[in-house]
């Protein structure tokens, strides 16, 4: 029962955060809403006994990713309200209809197995500690794990290349002097 109360409170927080992200005109408010949702999802991971994933969620998503988002929002200076006047006015209703239809299809497709479905969690209780995940990750999934090493290296190199090279070749190196 106590678990259900915690779930209900943070489910409301997650939905409110996602809704704020969707409707806020200012990207900073959108980022704050998404931050709320991601932290709530970390609480759900704790409820599901996925303790390591919960820690990773807080460190990477609410820590690194959202900080990067806020940094970029501030750096490119789009932290002002968005102009929502439409030049092609029929597209927004079509988008709303598509979104509602998509949600409806998901609910219809899953309603047989969800809330009324499997009555309880599996009997061999799973505890998502670092040890259990590491056994699986470095036992069965070693090669895909090494693949992520290449992926992250390529992403880092690509980011540097995107930042370093402009339309006319390498950008001039900043020599640390104040611009005049």
């Amino acid at each position, binding site marked *: 029962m106590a678990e*259900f109360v915690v*779930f209900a409170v943070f*489910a409301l927080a997650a*939905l409110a955060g*996602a*809704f704020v*992200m*969707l409707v806020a005109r200012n*990207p900073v408010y*959108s980022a704050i809403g998404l931050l709320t*949702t*991601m932290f709530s999802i970390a609480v*759900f*991971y704790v409820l*599901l006994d*996925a303790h390591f*994933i919960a820690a*990773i*969620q807080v460190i*990477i*998503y609410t820590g690194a*990713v959202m900080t990067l*988002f806020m940094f*970029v*929002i501030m*750096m*490119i200076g*789009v932290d002002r309200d*968005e102009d929502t006047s439409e*030049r092609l006015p029929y597209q*927004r209703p079509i*988008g709303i209809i598509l*979104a509602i239809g*998509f*949600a409806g299809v998901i*609910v219809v497709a*899953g309603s047989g*197995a*969800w*809330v009324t*479905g*499997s009555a*309880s*969690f*599996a009997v*061999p209780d*799973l505890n*998502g500690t670092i040890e259990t*995940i590491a*056994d*699986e*990750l470095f036992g*069965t999934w070693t090669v895909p794990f090494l693949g*992520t090493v290449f*992926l*992250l290296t390529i*992403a880092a190199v*690509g980011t540097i290349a*995107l*930042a370093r090279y402009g339309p006319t070749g390498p950008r001039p190196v900043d020599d640390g002097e104040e611009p005049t």
Partner: protein
Amino acid sequence: MTLTAGWFMGLAAVLFALGGAGVLLRRNALVMFMSIELMLNAVNLTFVAASKALGQVEGQVATLFVIVVAAAEVTVGLAIIVAIFHRRASADVDEFAELRG
């Protein structure tokens, strides 16, 4: 009421739909990108809920891989947005419609 995996999956479906609506309805590239992150998080939640319901740890390993890929995606995606912004001084995706720089 008891808490089952179905509650988490239903919530994840709603969050996924909200993220999809964000991609469809918003024109700010940064907010569209945040919506994609929300969809990835919703899928992660279903993975972990299924992992708990079935008593198998593979779902949590899959979540770990999704988080790694999402982190790589965020760095490259934001670098692209910043590079486009330096040319266009706008984060509105309608402004990016032409292929000529």
